[in-house]
């Protein structure tokens, strides 16, 4: 599912529905409205973030997970960063702005409906630090109609980083 060969086009209506969902989702995360955000996920959601080992081109790329959550552990992570009493990294809250672009949508095999591929750029500013940081990567979301709406069932974020430059990742990508 990770490579993007043969992206089959879907109807414009489907494309727009996916785009609306991802835009709304990004806005909720930027606003730190995690309760509303969690409602956009299926109950069996998976969330994986990978980074990359820098290797010779002949050896081929190697991505490895830095975050790998199921619904339970993702909920714990978000309960922590969403509660001012339970987080140091996100209190005061860091400022984030997510840019989700270059959307491509294809039909996905059951039980999911679509696979959405996007570029992700997150600007993030912490405290009074003079400079912000960026996270850049390619996202692959599997989306499923569930409880009446399209929801995110499985997210893979392949970061274009090997060393993460701003400490430890305390936001959702």
């Amino acid at each position, binding site marked *: 599912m990770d490579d993007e060969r043969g992206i089959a086009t879907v109807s414009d209506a489907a494309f727009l529905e996916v785009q609306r969902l991802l835009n709304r989702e990004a806005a909720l995360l930027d606003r730190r409205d995690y309760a509303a955000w969690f409602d956009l996920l299926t109950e069996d959601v998976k969330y994986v*973030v990978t*980074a990359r*080992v*820098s*290797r*010779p081109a002949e*050896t081929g790329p*190697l991505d*490895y*997970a*830095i*975050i*790998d*959550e199921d619904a*339970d*552990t993702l909920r*714990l*992570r978000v*309960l*922590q960063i969403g*509660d001012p*009493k*339970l*987080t*140091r*990294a996100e209190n005061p809250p860091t400022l984030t702005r997510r840019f989700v672009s270059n959307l491509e949508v294809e039909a996905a095999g059951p039980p999911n409906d679509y696979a959405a591929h996007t570029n992700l750029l997150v600007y993030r500013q*912490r*405290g009074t630090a003079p400079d912000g940081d960026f996270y850049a990567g390619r996202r692959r979301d599997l989306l499923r109609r569930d409880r009446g709406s399209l929801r995110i069932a499985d997210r893979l974020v392949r970061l274009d980083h*090997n*060393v*993460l*430059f*701003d*400490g*430890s*990742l*305390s936001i959702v990508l």
Partner: protein
Amino acid sequence: MNDVTSIANGDPWVDTANGTVSREIFVSEDVFCLELDRIFHRLWIFLAHETEIPNRGDYVVRTMGRVPVIVVREASGEVRVLLNSCRHRGTKLCRGEAGNARHFVCPYHGWSYALDGGLISTSYDEHLPADMDKADWGLVPAPKVESYKGLVFAAWDPGVSQLRDYLGDIAWYLDTLFWRTPGGMEVLAPPHRWRARANWKIGSLNFIGDGQHVATTHAGPSTLNRLHSKKAGFFVRGGESFQVVTDEGHGCTLTYLAPGMPEGNYLTHPPALRDAYAEVLSARQISMMHHLRVMVGNVFPNLSFIENQVALGEKAVLIRQWQPISGTETEVLSWVLAEREASAEYKDRALKHGFHNFGAGGVFEQDDLELWASATQASDNPIAQRFPFSFHSSLPFDSAPIENARGPGRAYKPSNTEVAQLAFMRRWDAAMQPGD
């Protein structure tokens, strides 16, 4: 600048009688340069785990202080540590983090080297003077390279003692983490790497014995893990705990299971492996493991380790390295390991559990990092540096090790004093002395 007192105001860097430590040593670039000389370019420094480079020609690229090195398994199966810099004009032979090579060819002018570092050809050998001996122009090897239970170390001072002697009594504890089954441990994935805007010593101090930060810094996971494990039907409560200090400034903190927790079955260890422990560990080591909930510690200067067990089936062994970049910056590397004999399913769970808690996105890690950065930033000025850090809670306990500890070394109770941290600072202070 070559004595062990503060550059700014003449106070001692480490005042063990009064339990204070200068802030300057946690930010100053001058102190940092001296640390490179006296610690990182001299003592045994951890580099890699053997299982990261299982096959001939496998290599990883690592750093010892400021020194970039290639850690490679050469044709004979031995691990070599080579300066990652061409002898001609300095270009890096390996510019990625890891790979496999049959030999190293410099991308600049084409000098080529064997896996053991020997110079094969300059590609213009016919232009060399007759008396140039190519044997003198191989990649520079670290003079000392040794492994202990899969942990590869190197040192640039040929006069350092044997690694096993350097580790001393901490080796007994390392055994129980890194060689508890006949096959030993295996690294499950490449190390996470991230930058901390903090001095490397803060990490070492935090791991050797900072019981005081857990409840406040980690209010998040401490609270949430309790909820989570209620759902899992089991919470591994901690009971008696103490700190262990060994020679050379190594140490660890051990927390046992609370009374009433089922003991004697290694609790969260894979059932299939429990019998294997007795094949390689002593009865005393096994009796410690039976009752253990958390072991966390540090090998001087910058190799930390932790095994933490929260709920049934949730534990992982982690290696952590605080790789110094400057006085105020550190690159952190973090590996997750499991017993080689463990099932694929168990390894997968250990990996996920390991980096859910500790790693580039760890729920523990993120809060430590933020607070270390703020301590570093706030101390990076001469006014703050007039006021040293407090290690006072070590003083009432420092001279009174307890009897009947469960393992070697000097053990202290309670575990949430700063005894082990002061021992680390004492060793650091000694290492920084010109004549040490």
